């Protein structure tokens, strides 16, 4: 807990990103989505990334995890547990992805494979990374579904995605990232597509993951309220650049950048008590 009092890298540094640039080749020429980003995450922290659509917050983490679309490319370094994810080989990246690093996407409605049962979409991760047998992997899947507080009674393991609600699907996305005991989870706008009640349930799960299981979380959102509720430190991005970087409390009470001040002024008064 000590390290979170200050905005510094400590000896439990998990992810260290330096000089990250992300480009895209489009029919209108080459555009730069992320400009010289520098950030880090320590073990057990929750880092919030806030910014508007198009600020580059998602692409930053897509590039680190190798999930950029085919017309995108990046340079820089992203050291995770001693390996530079950006220059690592495809095979090496795949060792981390799904195991030590989990990714939760913005739109749960379309993020699950329609023709596969939930059980298999979970167990295939454990079968692949940890060499479990099918039954062992399914057992672990049920355990993980408990962590994300999905009711056991519904026999989710044999259901198909279209039979579930948005909130349930998002929990399954979280379950997917938990299957092989990750150390870092990147959550991209995890609650944007959900209603307010479900939103707070999901955020509670994230807090539990951080507190009970010591998992570092990157929470990307355009909603400052969400960030305020969950993050220890926060980064503000605008037009591909990081404009503010500090402890959440500091940034909220004493913002240094103009854009940050503007963002904060947009919060409706009845939220400000936080």
């Amino acid at each position, binding site marked *: 807990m000590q390290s979170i009092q200050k905005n510094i890298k400590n000896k439990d540094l998990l992810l260290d990103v330096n000089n990250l640039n992300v480009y895209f080749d489009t029919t209108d020429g080459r555009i730069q989505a992320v400009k010289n980003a520098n950030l880090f995450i320590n073990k057990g922290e929750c880092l919030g990334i806030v910014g508007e659509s198009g600020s580059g917050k998602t692409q930053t983490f897509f590039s680190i*995890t*190798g*999930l950029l*679309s*085919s017309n995108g490319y990046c340079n820089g370094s992203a050291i995770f547990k001693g390996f530079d994810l950006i220059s690592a080989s495809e095979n090496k*990246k*795949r*060792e*981390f*992805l*799904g*195991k030590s690093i*989990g*990714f939760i*996407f913005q*739109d749960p409605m*379309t*993020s*699950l*494979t*329609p*023709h*596969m049962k939930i059980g298999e979409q979970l167990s*295939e*991760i454990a079968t*692949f*990374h940890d060499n479990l047998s099918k039954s062992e992997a399914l057992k672990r899947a049920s355990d993980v579904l408990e962590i994300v507080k999905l009711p056991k009674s519904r026999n989710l393991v044999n259901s*198909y995605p*279209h039979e579930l609600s948005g909130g349930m699907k998002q929990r399954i*996305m979280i379950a*997917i990232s938990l299957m092989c005991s990750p150390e870092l989870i990147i959550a991209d706008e995890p609650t944007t597509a959900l209603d307010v009640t479900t939103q707070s349930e999901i955020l509670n799960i994230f807090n539990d993951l951080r507190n009970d299981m010591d998992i570092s979380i990157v929470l990307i959102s355009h909603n400052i309220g969400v960030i305020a509720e969950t993050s220890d430190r926060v980064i503000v991005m605008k037009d591909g650049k990081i404009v503010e970087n500090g402890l959440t409390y500091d940034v909220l009470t004493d913002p240094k950048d103009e854009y940050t001040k503007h963002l904060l002024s947009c919060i409706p008064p009845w939220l400000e008590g936080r």
Partner: protein
Amino acid sequence: MRINMIKFITKRLIIAIPTLLIIIAFGFIMMRIAPGGPFTNERALPPEIERNIQEAYNLNKPIYEQFFIYIKNLSVGDFGPSFKYKDFTVKELIISGLPVSATLGLSSIIISLFLGSILGIIAAIKKNTYFDYTIMGVSLVGICVPSFVMAPILSLFFGLYLGLLPTSGWNGGNVLNLILPIIALSLPQIAVISRMMRASTIEVLNSNFIRTAKSKGLKSSYIIRKHVIRASILPIIEYLAPASAGLMTGSIIVEQIFGLPGIGRYFVVGALQRDYTLVSGVMILYASLLIILILITDILRAYLDPRVKV
């Protein structure tokens, strides 16, 4: 099999049967109003055929009764006597042509589906590489060169100039005689299917759930096998019936050019000689086959896509 499946099939049959009836009625009406046909007065027929027709069609009975008798006969496979071939019934002619057309048709559909799908998937995965361009180039040829241009050219090239393959004749179903006709018949369908598959696979590869699969760190070959293929093959299943229709159409040409004594050839001869009963009979046969295919397609689609309400 889920019990709902039976209800599903029944529901589909309820629409299919009236359609078949409409098509049969179409054939029936065409025969009745055709000038020079068996049911107009301008006949100048040899007495044997005249007699056959009078018997077979009960021309003294009211027309709706004739229609019911016609359908009753159809359901036992009796299409009536041929209008031009004095000693044969339509059924006999069809049966003699069936092995040829069936061999040709089945081989072509299987080859088209498999080859087309595989080429399409490869083109999609290796998008914008030379693989992709080659496959798309070949498919362009298949689309722009109609079968009646392609078949003679193939025949000329491989048959005449290179002397590798026979250019015509059935020869009892000898494999060598089948090669050129099957290629000429399948090529347009392979072209269309490979394009469809490519477009569908590209769309699936760019979808959110494949992104999720990638984020699990799974191997590409595994993702393609378990996540991509089943999702991208759906449009091809939809295309099964029109593809078969295309093959039926194409077989008419191909049988003509390669001198194969199949149903298609009888159909053409019948059309040119105005053998109305033969022509109607073949049309009804094809239509029934296709309606069965549509049913199979519906069942396949329900099986492959759990979202379809059964």
